[in-house]
């Protein structure tokens, strides 16, 4: 890197700027939109010059949506709370189930273990609609439709395979001799798992948990079909802004900014671990 020529440095800089612009522009634009009224947003041609207003945020946080025709209540903060509850609980449950399972798949090759692991992975590549219809029907039968419990259960389809497969790679990368050494030193199986395997796979577990959180947060279709208004997360809740009196672009933008803020903050904070974690698991060393 040190011997890079000046032109090379410039080209690299330009390329990076283009990439960043391309990916950051929508976020930048939506932040701008969230600070405008519907009238200024819909101006033609669009202009960057406007008087910023926090009206949209106020409307969303207080739950009072005022258009020029009528006033209506929205429960966006409730949606946000639902999102947090569903994502956190889903990831917690998936970690609780997935980490021991990943360890089992990594360390104990039993008959059919590969098949089971692959079946779990295949949940990730089946289209969600495939499972949704039967799920809706029998969730209604057994009373799980429109419950947090039911949603968290279904969210395992998203979180569990992800955690299982990423964490499994981490456990496989830990030399079994480390665990053997700890057991021969006189520690039980359980304490070896807790004191050796878990801490050493720590970065991987954190990375997998973070990814699972983002996937759970961004999920739309499961909650759309299986939850009614009071259980819906932000992704579904945003639909409420399409009202009879028009689409409230300003409020949608403010809602989007509020809903991506937690994951964005989390990802920015953890990106170092995320990159390190994901690449460490892939490379045997």
């Amino acid at each position, binding site marked *: 890197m040190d011997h890079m020529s000046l032109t090379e440095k410039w080209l690299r800089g330009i390329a990076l700027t283009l990439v960043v612009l391309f990916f950051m522009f929508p976020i930048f634009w939506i932040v701008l939109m969230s600070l405008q009224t519907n009238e200024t947003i819909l101006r033609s041609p669009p202009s960057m010059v406007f008087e910023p207003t926090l009206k949209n945020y106020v409307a969303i946080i207080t739950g009072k949506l005022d258009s020029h025709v009528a006033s209506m209540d929205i429960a966006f903060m409730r949606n946000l709370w639902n999102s947090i509850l569903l994502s956190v609980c889903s990831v917690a449950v998936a970690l609780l189930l997935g980490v021991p399972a990943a360890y089992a798949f990594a360390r104990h090759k039993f008959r059919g273990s590969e098949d089971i692991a692959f079946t779990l992975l295949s949940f990730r590549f089946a289209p969600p609609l495939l499972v949704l219809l039967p799920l809706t029907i029998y969730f209604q039968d057994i009373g799980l439709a429109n419950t947090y419990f039911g949603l968290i259960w279904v969210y395992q389809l998203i979180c569990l395979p992800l955690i299982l497969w990423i964490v499994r790679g981490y456990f496989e990368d830990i030399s079994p001799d480390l665990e053997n050494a700890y057991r*021969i030193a*006189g520690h039980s199986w359980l304490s070896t798992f807790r004191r050796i395997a878990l801490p050493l796979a720590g970065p991987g577990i954190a990375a997998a948990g973070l990814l699972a959180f983002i996937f759970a947060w961004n999920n739309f279709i499961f909650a759309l079909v299986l939850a009614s208004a009071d259980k819906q997360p932000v992704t579904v809740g945003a639909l409420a802004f399409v009202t009879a009196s028009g689409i409230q672009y300003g409020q949608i933008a403010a809602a989007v900014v509020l809903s991506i803020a937690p994951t964005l903050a989390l990802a920015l904070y953890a990106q170092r671990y995320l990159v390190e974690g994901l690449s460490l698991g892939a490379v045997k060393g």
Partner: protein
Amino acid sequence: MPELRIENLTKRFKSETVLDDVGFTVEEGRTLVLFGPSGSGKTVLLRCIAGAEEPEDGHILIGGHEMREVPPEHRGIGMAFQNFALFPHMTAFDNIASPLAARKLPRDRIREDVERVAKLLKIDHVLSHAPRALSNGQKQRTALARALAAAPSLLLLDDPLRNVDAKLRFEMRLELPRLLADQGATVIYVTQDYKEAMALGDRIAVLSAGQITQAGTPEDIYRRPASIEIARLFGDPTINLLDVVPEKDGGGVFVRLSGQRVPLDGGLEAAVGKDCVLGLRPESLRFAESQDGIPVTIEAETPFNEKTVTLVVTERGREILISRPAGTEAPSEGKTSIEVESSEALLFDRATQSRIVPDQGGGTSEAAA
């Protein structure tokens, strides 16, 4: 200090048999060196004893107790791994303390014990370091310290000197026997280095392709190897192996090397007329004073510090290595002749590769005469 007994131990991985009916006993407080080329099953055998692998068949008895159902943590074993297997997220101190912590000893007692064993192995100044901050030698000592810390009655050492540099290996080879004797533990020491095996073992068991091919004292193995393979594994430079057919006349049993008689033990009469391999240790050969030895031409001379190795070629083109202490007088080029210390000569059956043991009762020994 228990005795370790292995009986009919068999271990397979899928269809491959890694250990095949292995059996031996290590008396309490003794050191057995398990010697063999890589892939011979040494490490697997240690793992079976430690409980990290489950054998398909056979018995492992420690102090007379069957270990089959006993989990590794209850076998009372200390083990040092070839790859050290230090816990990377713990300091050297916590690594060494782990067997003590498992025994739920009080904090002060653990500190005392760790410091004692660390001082013994000269790593007391690096106890607060993480393994990645240690040199290879320090890692190796930390791994050894961890194995020794709880004063286990059975100690398994899996080639602990393999990954350390030559200087440290030499030092440790001198230190280890004393250290092991102080521990008073029953020890199995795995190595691929014959010098280590000779230096450390009360007994040596040679493992080859999953079977014990010979077990005995270091002297037994060196002077009376059971097969050509074992003879070749022990000794540096390696043993000279020459195809011969023993003959017999009124003077006794002998073989011809370049027309010269090399007398053999009279008890080898049974080998007369068979295709055999003569094994001559390089140090059992010397340059002849007179001209009636085996005529050879000197090809090359390699001086080592403590010895000089000379490569000579017989008239029939057979290459022979001769080793002599450094500084001794000897011709260094041209034609000369060599003599064989025939009491040291070994005879192997070329078909079975195993050594032909002289028949003690029969025949007159020309070599002894």
